[in-house]
């Protein structure tokens, strides 16, 4: 597309954003103007009590005002971004730190899934026997919500952190396994014939012909997997608690701090987008034109 077109789409996106933010601001403005009245309803003792708890009574009133305005959210976002990595005990960690916990779980679970799904997918793709034997299992295991494994994981693994990684592993494995098997099975016969006439060893054939031929399909599977993993990690961390961005959302909800919840939602979206873009870049790298 032409750069003039790009400029126009960017402009339209910005306009839409402004429109949404403006509407949001207008819709929450009323509650904002009611703010002082509610604040008055806090007695001096209540305000003192909140200060003793280490909370800002004005912020507390804002919470009770109902849905926060974009300005409030932006203010809370600014506070988080100014100091993302603080650690003041189990219930009070910076959002950057929580993100790192989540990303570490996703990276570990996803990485383990790659290590299992790629070789197994190769095997399934290359051998109709293995495919036939494993197919019923894949069919049954694939539609199980990864969170349904959580109780079993917690019981057997006895560790909420490891269980989170396990759940990510389970949800990441299927798209990669299925795509790898499909990609390997549908490598063009003539490319395999080329390898055969050149008496290429099995290992070299796997790495120099089948892998690059199937790579676009495999990476598509990885991209689907990382998307699902990022969806699931939030739910998993809400469930088991402790650390992570999912726990952060849940914790802020218990604190009734909607601005923090909204900010965390935005962060989840942006990080998810970055993960997808990373796999997208990898996809462009391995895609070939026939």
């Amino acid at each position, binding site marked *: 597309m032409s750069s003039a077109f790009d400029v126009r789409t960017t402009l339209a996106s910005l306009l839409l954003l402004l429109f949404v933010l403006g509407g949001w601001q207008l819709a929450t403005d009323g509650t904002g103007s009611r703010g002082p009245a509610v604040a008055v309803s806090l007695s001096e003792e209540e305000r003192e009590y909140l200060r003793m708890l280490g909370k800002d009574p004005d912020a507390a009133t804002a919470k009770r005002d109902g849905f926060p305005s974009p300005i409030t959210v932006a203010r809370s976002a600014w506070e988080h971004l100014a100091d993302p990595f603080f650690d003041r005990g189990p219930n009070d960690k910076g959002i950057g730190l929580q993100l790192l916990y989540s990303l570490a779980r996703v990276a570990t679970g996803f990485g383990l899934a790659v290590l299992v799904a790629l070789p197994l997918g190769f095997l399934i793709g290359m051998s109709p026997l293995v495919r036939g034997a494993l197919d019923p299992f894949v069919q049954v295991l694939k539609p199980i919500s990864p969170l349904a494994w959580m109780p079993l994981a917690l019981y057997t693994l006895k560790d909420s952190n490891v269980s989170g990684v396990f759940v990510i592993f389970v949800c990441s494995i299927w798209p990669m396994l299925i795509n790898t098997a499909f990609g390997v099975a549908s490598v*063009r016969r*003539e*490319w395999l*014939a*080329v390898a*055969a*006439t*050149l*008496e*290429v060893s099995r290992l*070299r054939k796997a790495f*120099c*012909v089948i892998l*690059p*031929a199937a*790579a676009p399909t495999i990476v598509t599977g990885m991209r689907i997997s990382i998307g699902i993993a990022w969806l699931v990690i939030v739910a998993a961390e809400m469930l088991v608690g402790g650390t992570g961005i999912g726990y952060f959302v849940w914790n802020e909800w218990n604190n009734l701090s909607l601005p923090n919840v909204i900010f965390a939602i935005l962060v989840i979206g942006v990080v998810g987008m970055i993960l997808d873009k990373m796999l997208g870049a990898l996809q462009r790298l*391995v895609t*070939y*034109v*026939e």
Partner: protein
Amino acid sequence: MAPFLQVEKLSKAYQADRPVFADVSFSAQRGEFVCLIGHSGCGKTTILNVLAGLDSATTGHVFVDGREVRGPGLERGVVFQNHALLPWLTVRRNIAFAVKSRWPSWKAAQVDEQVRKYVELVGLGHAIDKKPFQLSGGMKQRVGIARAFAIEPKLLLLDEPFGALDALTRGTIQDELMAIVRRTGQTVFMITHDVDEAILLADRILLMTNGGDTPGGYRPGGLAEVVRNPLPRERSRAELHRLPGYYELRNHLVDFLVSRAKAA
């Protein structure tokens, strides 16, 4: 002297009672250029795949240089009908893949030298670092030929290598092909459905019939005739039609394709 390529009583049946072809026997001397002509579906590609070791015949044997063919091998180079280049590799690396397979102990420089030599031979030096999708159909086919030649096989197997090319490009590559094999003395087995191509290139032309139902029942395809090319071996496309015997040969082949090649 035993022939370099010996094919004995080959048959292939996907359905036991209706073999595609049966009783196909022929041979080729070292350095000979043999063309197989027949209509589409008669089993030409199947025969070539059996010679290449990529497919197995239902009955019969193939011997190359005194040894029976039991699988694919580097002493036989194949040019595929649709070039079969690996699309994620450049021309250089496509051919290097073959060269490295042939001589695993070669150093990178040695491999590259061999690659360059054969890329230059098919006139694609300027496109050596391009990927297949950046090349025209004719250029891709030339890369396929360069890849097969670069491993210096004793027997070359070509499956309608110029079928998809325009007449002009086809003529140029035919000339190149002929020049190369005359120089190297390689044995060539080539499938074509182009009569003039066969007359230009082949020392002998195998005529193949399609299988089909006749009043007397099903008749499998097979070799109907082997025609020796009477034209002088040093011939060129331009003077071909002026050589004595050209029209007789051409009429014979066209007659076969029009009236005898199909069972029905």
